[in-house]
């Protein structure tokens, strides 16, 4: 499959947890599914070329950057062995075992050193990139490519993985629920009284092909909530409007902040540690736009905080039966009580 070219024609499965219903829509219908006073919250993180070919003393590896420590040269990364994006991640060869101190050449002008190896999996490592600032970023963009998906029929270019409002490159995989949003659609929503605000959230790896690592996902991710967004969320909640997150990363940022501050979000730069699942009671977010996710994924676990597993199971079966495109870059779902 390939992402739909006409963004507004992306299919949208509206799951209403209050009425326990499913309705087939198109993404262009989104403004009609919201009501005046609602707030769309976007993740404006741009997507990094987080997949790097590395050469180690013990052979070639693919390095997938997973998260960057605040302001530093230290990253968390997952290593993959020989093979290509055309294979499912779980079918890829194992990478060589790299101990702390091993060095990697990641391309012209970009070297890295393994700083630590996770006890959970030898493929989950700490990495120090030996460049900074003006030397780091051009080298990273030269050497890296966007993380690829074996269910797509071709490789994704850097422009394929950017939302139309992307700014700082913090995400290692695209905050893809925003992929279909256009400025015109945001204007159409605004004309109906639906405002928008944004957070920056370093969306991490969606899967690693390693069961032990996948159990740990999502890893801690840094986020930033600007003051206008804090104020907008508070205003909407005070006036009975709903906060609709565009993507699971936005849910994670807002709910992590709410958890840290007794139910209200703060303007802050912090680390999201919170894992959201069926036992979570969202304090700020009322619903979300997301992909079509199957049982067992971290995205699906998060959706269970907003809708009963039975409805989500039905939604997934319905999407399969009606030919929705699944996985990253596929069609979308809206999990939100109906507007009227």
């Amino acid at each position, binding site marked *: 499959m390939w992402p739909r070219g006409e963004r507004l024609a992306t299919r949208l499965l509206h799951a209403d947890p209050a009425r326990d219903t499913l309705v087939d829509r198109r993404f262009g219908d989104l403004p009609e599914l919201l009501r005046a006073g609602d707030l769309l919250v976007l993740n404006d993180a741009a997507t990094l070329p987080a997949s790097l070919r590395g050469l180690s003393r013990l052979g070639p590896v693919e390095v997938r950057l997973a998260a960057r420590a605040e302001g530093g040269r230290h990253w968390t990364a997952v290593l993959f062995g020989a093979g290509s994006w055309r294979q499912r991640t779980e079918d890829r060869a194992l990478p060589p075992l790299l101990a702390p101190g091993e060095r990697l050449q990641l391309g012209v002008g970009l070297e890295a050193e393994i700083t630590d190896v996770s006890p959970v999996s030898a493929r989950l490592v700490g990495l120090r990139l030996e460049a900074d*600032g003006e030397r780091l*970023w051009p080298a990273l*963009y030269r050497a890296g490519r966007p993380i690829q998906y074996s269910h797509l029929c071709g490789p994704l270019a850097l*422009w394929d993985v950017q939302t139309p*409002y992307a*700014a700082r490159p913090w995400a290692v995989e695209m905050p893809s629920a925003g992929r279909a949003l256009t*400025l015109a659609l945001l204007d159409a929503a605004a004309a109906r009284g639906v405002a928008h605000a944004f957070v920056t959230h370093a969306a991490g790896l969606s899967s690693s092909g390693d069961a032990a690592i996948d159990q740990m996902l999502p890893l801690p991710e840094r986020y930033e909530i600007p003051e206008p967004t804090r104020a907008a969320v508070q205003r909407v909640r005070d006036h009975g409007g709903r906060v609709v997150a565009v993507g699971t990363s936005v849910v994670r940022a807002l709910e992590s902040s709410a958890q840290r501050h007794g139910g209200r979000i703060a303007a802050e730069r912090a680390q999201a540690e919170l894992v959201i699942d069926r036992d979570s009671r969202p304090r700020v977010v009322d619903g979300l736009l997301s992909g079509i996710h199957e049982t067992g994924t971290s995205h699906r676990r998060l959706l269970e905080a907003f809708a009963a597993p039975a409805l989500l199971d039905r939604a997934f079966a319905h999407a399969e039966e009606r030919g929705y495109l699944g996985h990253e870059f596929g069609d979308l779902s809206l999990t939100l009580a109906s507007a009227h």
Partner: protein
Amino acid sequence: MRVRGSAALITGGSRGLGRALGAELARRGARVVLVARNGEALRRTVEEIRRAGGEAHALVADVGEKDAIYPLVGAVTALAGPIDLLVHNASVLGPVPLLPLADTDCEALQQVLDVNLVGPFRLTQAIVGSMAIRGAGLVLSISSDAAINGYPGWGAYGVSKAGLDHLIRTWAAEVPAVRFASIDPGEMDTDMHADAMPDADRSTLRDPQEVARWIADWLERAEDTPSGARVEAALEVHA
């Protein structure tokens, strides 16, 4: 807009007006990222700005290349934060000495359009959304008298600048949350001008530093100009 504390991306920043504007904005407290094809000249410019106490970063890229745009935007925002001011200053004349259209290869026209028109379109597209959701931001293109008048030999360049002015007008009509403008800086004493008109009397040409100061002053009161407007700097400087 408020220049102090803003993040400014200036293309064609290694020499001429781009270099002077980079220095002027950095002096006024902007975080400046300069882009050019010539890394050596660019790094010298950035070093000068830093020695004067300003914040500046150098990124080598050719804005006429499609593949260069997203890596450039990613690196700029990683270094300076979300972009508040985008200045499309880079441009090429095409082959010099300037040739009449009848003698201009279509490949030469294409190359001028790639750098002066399509590049700025791509760069604006990659940045304008982040400005729009912030409800702020300014996109400025450097225009020319040749965008208005048809001068012999200036066809390819003039067409590209006329197109760039019209892009600015159309962006302004489509994205009201962001401010757009074209500035015609007048004839300046730059390498580009010398390439185009080697016999010009340099004493009649404007100093790029003076124009840069005028543009920086204009930026501070950009809200007074309707978005999408074409502004003639030279006339107001002489007034």
